[in-house]
């Protein structure tokens, strides 16, 4: 007996070690959640590896910042100018989008919809990966101590990245959307077809559960549907890259190119909290279209208070229309960077007649524009469709945003 044991000692130990590991695997597979049972070894492994990664990332970031922020500033001035121009363009775009959002809010309120939006995020840096093609996941430098919890959504400015799978004291493991065990509720932006976005073993991303008799066009944008209760609705997931399998099978094979660059992640945002509330038409607390407009316009000097008997015509130089007169006293403090004070009581005690659909508290240059539209002599004139001229300043507005102003006839008379 001793001879046999001695002769096959190595083989017996091999079988023993393999058996133990296979047993451990079987236990993990049998349990629905192995998070707790294997937590200790994971904590040790992560604790041994991630500090090195964290320090290396920190050093890399520090030296990179030192170089880029202090030494390598070539072209910064030109870039700054370009960015300012871009900001101007984006502000105009924001004006249009805010109008659309306001309208959507009003409609949602009419239909008693509940809306959900991201209310709190935390920025995190990607410090490591699983190092395996069979496990597409990354480690971030935020953990329990930063308020991260299991199941939280992880995004970038480009789109969805994944969700938090495991949380450690100062790091977290994020499962990417191209892992085969991930799944995200998705909806196609134009056709509104819903499906499930899944990763494949070779790291591709496929949209599943789309019936083969549906039409899906390559290039169409894919958004989160919100149905998975993890990702807020409307976040970009990617674009349809290829559609196949329409002839055979019940479902289409829709290959998707992820919006976020999953191969080169550096900084991500973890969605800490989503807020759900009843949709309201009131835009309190949000940046409104009119505020942005006000920021882009120069200060309008106070008009001489001349009473004209309350006719409400809004003729310049009269204070007959209180609303119009007060509206022009809005002082856009954009020059100093402060938000313009446009609270209803102090600015517009009486709503302007032409702006009756505006909710209480949302006073602004819209009233002025409407006045301008209905009365070219209201103090602000339109030089040409799509443009609005104000004293000393020329602002361009998209036609959709300020429809009335665009239809205002051109006036040579710029009395201000």
């Amino acid at each position: 007996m001793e001879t046999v044991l001695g002769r096959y000692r190595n083989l017996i130990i091999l079988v023993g070690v393999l058996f133990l590991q296979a047993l451990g695997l079987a236990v993990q597979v049998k349990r629905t959640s192995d998070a707790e049972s294997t937590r200790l070894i994971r904590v040790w492994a992560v604790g041994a590896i991630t500090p090195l990664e964290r320090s290396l990332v920190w050093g890399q970031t520090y030296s990179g910042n030192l170089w880029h922020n202090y030494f390598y500033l070539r072209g910064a001035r030109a870039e700054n100018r370009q960015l300012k121009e871009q900001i101007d363009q984006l502000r105009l775009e924001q004006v249009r989008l805010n109008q659309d959002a306001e309208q959507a809010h009003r409609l949602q309120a009419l239909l008693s919809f509940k809306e959900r939006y991201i209310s709190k995020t935390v920025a995190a840096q990607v410090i490591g990966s699983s190092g395996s093609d069979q496990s597409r996941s990354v480690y971030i430098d935020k953990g329990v101590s930063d308020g991260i919890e299991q199941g939280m959504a992880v995004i970038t400015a480009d789109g969805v990245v994944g969700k938090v799978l495991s949380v450690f004291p100062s790091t977290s493991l994020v499962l990417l959307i191209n892992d085969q065990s991930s799944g995200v509720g998705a909806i196609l932006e134009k056709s509104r077809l819903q499906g499930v976005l899944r990763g494949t073993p070779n790291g591709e991303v496929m949209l599943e559960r789309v019936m083969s008799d549906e039409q899906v066009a390559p290039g169409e944008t894919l958004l989160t549907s919100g149905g998975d209760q993890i990702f807020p609705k409307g976040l970009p997931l990617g674009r349809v890259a290829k559609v196949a399998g329409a002839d055979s099978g019940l479902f289409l094979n829709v290959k998707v190119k992820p919006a976020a660059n999953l191969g080169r992640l550096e900084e991500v945002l973890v969605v800490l909290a989503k807020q759900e509330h009843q949709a309201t038409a009131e835009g309190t607390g949000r940046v409104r279209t009119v505020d942005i407009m006000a920021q882009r316009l120069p200060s309008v000097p106070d008009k001489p208070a001349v009473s004209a008997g309350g006719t409400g015509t809004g003729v310049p130089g009269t204070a007959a229309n209180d609303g119009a007169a007060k509206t022009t006293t809005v002082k856009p403090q954009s020059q100093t960077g402060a938000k313009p004070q446009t609270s209803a009581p102090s600015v517009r005690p009486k709503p302007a007649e032409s702006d009756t659909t505006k909710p209480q508290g949302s006073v602004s240059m819209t009233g002025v524009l409407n006045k301008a539209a209905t009365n070219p002599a209201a103090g602000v004139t339109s030089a040409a469709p799509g443009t609005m001229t104000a004293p000393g300043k020329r602002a361009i507005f998209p036609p959709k945003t300020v429809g009335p102003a665009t239809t205002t006839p051109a006036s040579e008379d710029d009395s201000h």
Partner: protein
Amino acid sequence: MPITYTSGEQVEVYRFRVPVTVGVPLLALFLQAFVPLRFPFFSVFDLPLLVTIFFAMARRNPVSGLLTGALIGLIQDALTHRAIGLYGIAKTVVGFGASSLGAKLDVENAGARFLLTLGFYLVHSAVYFTVARGMVSLTLDWSWSRGVLAGLANAAVGVALYFVLDRFKQRT
């Protein structure tokens, strides 16, 4: 052919200092987790596997080899979100095989190391896929062309790595 059969008395058995025994596998695991973030193609390489093969072949002790492989594999498993034991089992087998072969073959030259590393890479992949499919029901795609190419790449890197690690060897 560079692989030659040698008697047990002819082969030299090496040992390593504790910092090397602990530090090199940890460094390999760290690089495996960190470098693919900057260079995604790096995930083709399996540095922990190469380190397992090196230590197993140098020590030429099957028990030591399989335990080294098991430990490195389990830590590698712990860094993924999969069940722990997939890499552990695969590297245990590789550690045992490499140390057993190391006791019988001359594995000091580049050609032998290249072929052995290629072979063990394929064995490692086969065991991993078998266990993953058979026990964990993972759906994995196996491509022979990709597998062999990855094996060749690992073998090439392995040969270079082994010559670097040879400096830490100590004769018993």
